[in-house]
């Protein structure tokens, strides 16, 4: 064996023998993911005739609709969510102002959360609102299973005219802040 080969062999041998991973730390593996999930919630478009009873020829001052709200049926969500944010965008082309009331109920129709109502002025085309719920302050909210949205026209001397096409556009999202 010549001197060159001997040197190469020695270097390789040392490489193998000193092979190490000492500078790694496997004790500090603490990975908390904090995903933020956002999804569309409720949307609708109402015309003036939605507030008009053609049979009695009278204005309907308030309309409501309700849906199941099953976001928190999932135990994975219930266990990991720490904050819920609702965002609203409303376009009011009516010549009337109106009020929106959003209420959440549990499976027994007990109120779990009432979002503070908001009033949208006439011809306000860019109304935005938001409501944030810290679960630690309101754990009851996790038992919500239904949501009701009430649209209530404010009293006015100006009457609804179903023959004029004017709309209210309502959009909303739910954003869940999770800690996994």
């Amino acid at each position, binding site marked *: 064996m010549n001197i060159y080969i001997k040197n190469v062999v020695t270097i390789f041998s040392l490489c193998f023998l000193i092979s190490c991973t000492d500078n*790694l730390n496997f004790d500090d593996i603490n990975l908390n993911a904090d995903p933020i999930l956002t999804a569309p919630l409720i949307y609708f478009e109402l015309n003036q005739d939605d507030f008009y009873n053609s049979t009695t020829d009278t204005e309907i001052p308030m309309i409501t609709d309700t849906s199941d*709200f099953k976001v928190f049926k999932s135990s994975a969500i219930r266990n990991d969510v720490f904050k819920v944010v609702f965002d609203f965008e409303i376009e009011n082309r009516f010549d009337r102002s109106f009020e929106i009331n959003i209420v959440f109920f549990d499976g027994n129709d007990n109120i779990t959360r009432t979002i503070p109502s908001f009033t949208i002025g006439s011809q306000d085309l860019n109304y935005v609102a938001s409501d944030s719920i810290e679960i630690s302050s309101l754990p009851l909210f996790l038992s919500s299973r239904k949501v009701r949205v009430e649209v209530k026209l404010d009293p006015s001397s100006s009457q609804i005219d179903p023959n004029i096409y004017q709309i209210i556009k309502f959009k909303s999202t739910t954003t869940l802040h999770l800690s996994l």
Partner: protein
Amino acid sequence: MNKLVLILFLISVVSLKSQQKLAFSFGESPQTLLLNPGAETNFRSHYGIPMLSDFSFDIGLTGFNLNDLFSNDSRAFKTRFEEVLNKINSTDYMSFNTKIDILNVGFRLNKKTYLSFGFYEELDFIGYAPKDFIELFYYGNEPFLNRSFSLSQVSLKGDFLGVLHAGISKKINEKLNVGARVKIYSSSINIESLNNSGTFSSSTSNENIIRQSLNNLNGQVRTSGIVDSDDEFIDSPGEYFSKTFLGSNMGLGLDFGLTYHFTSQLEFTASLLDIGFIRHSKNTKNFNIDGNYVLDGLNFEYDASSLSNYWQQVEQDFRDRVITEETQEAYTSWRPMKINAALKYSFGEKRDKTCYSKTHKQYYYNAIGFQIHNIMRPIKPQFSFTSFYEASLSKKIHTKFTHTINDYSSIIFGAATSLQLGKLSVFGGLDNLLGVADVSTANSIAFNFGFNIVID
């Protein structure tokens, strides 16, 4: 001292690490036949030592290394994880392959023909980094409005199988030697999710503030061997091993290879391995998802005459449009075909070797060359280019030193040795010598060794 250094080297190489491609076109060891059925053999017969005749292990990771994730510094693990997540892309992957030869025997049929057969077990896995979905899971969709998350990034394939094989190496003339090997695959476990397509996105919308869309979703996960006939998961390791020998899901494959001498000093070798398939018809469990869906939210209608359960409508609409199903359908999986080729130029001092038939063959003490190694993988082939230098220390001790460029790194140095201790032929090799010094910063480590009795 010389002997001590030599022994140290051999123990290190043989007992630690290397890679199968090091064995290609090297040393005329019996293992070469598994990498190139057309390799030349100059022995009368060989008998692999059961379980030790050929063992290889190869693990690799692209995009990051262990040090990136687990370095012992003051940064929080979360910070390091996010840096790695930012660094990787969807073509990065983790691959793992290990083979253990259970039985390997060969004998010379006549002056020109050598037969070999045996049985080995193989565990093979490759999984690509579905970066989109890792980010979606980790950060959520809120920070990524108007971004499409692609299901096509989900791609993985894993196999645990046994391979019964028989091969023939035949000398056509002084220049050409060809060979072939037939393989019967017995799959114990197969898991694969390939050719997925479609996207998920959350985008701004006119209907609502945002819209969620599943576009052209088409995904599947196919498995065989992980559930029994009662659809219960198999938890007995013994059952997994027993199915590798002529078990329930069988396949067929072929290897081809050749050795060609342009001159006495210039040699070309090439092989195509695992051109084959496995038909999975028993103990299969597959999951499919297919469809399109657009979610704008719950569309309140305020129709007092017809109250609607909007949530239920959305759920039903989703089920109608996005079909998910679990099936037990049979399917075919393709083996990852390998392509090897090497061009070698021998030079230096000549040596003679007495072969099986008392003939003499001339060798050179040194050789240089290059070789390519390519594995067909789901997203793109795993390609390696290796340049090498071979040196014979004596008639019975041969060494090979390599430099490889591949997906893992452009500075992978390897070493291999093949030696004859009486009738015992020993082969060992290690790839990524630099990586071994600190495994934490290495993207790949591979080793290969084998012990065979060779009768000249």
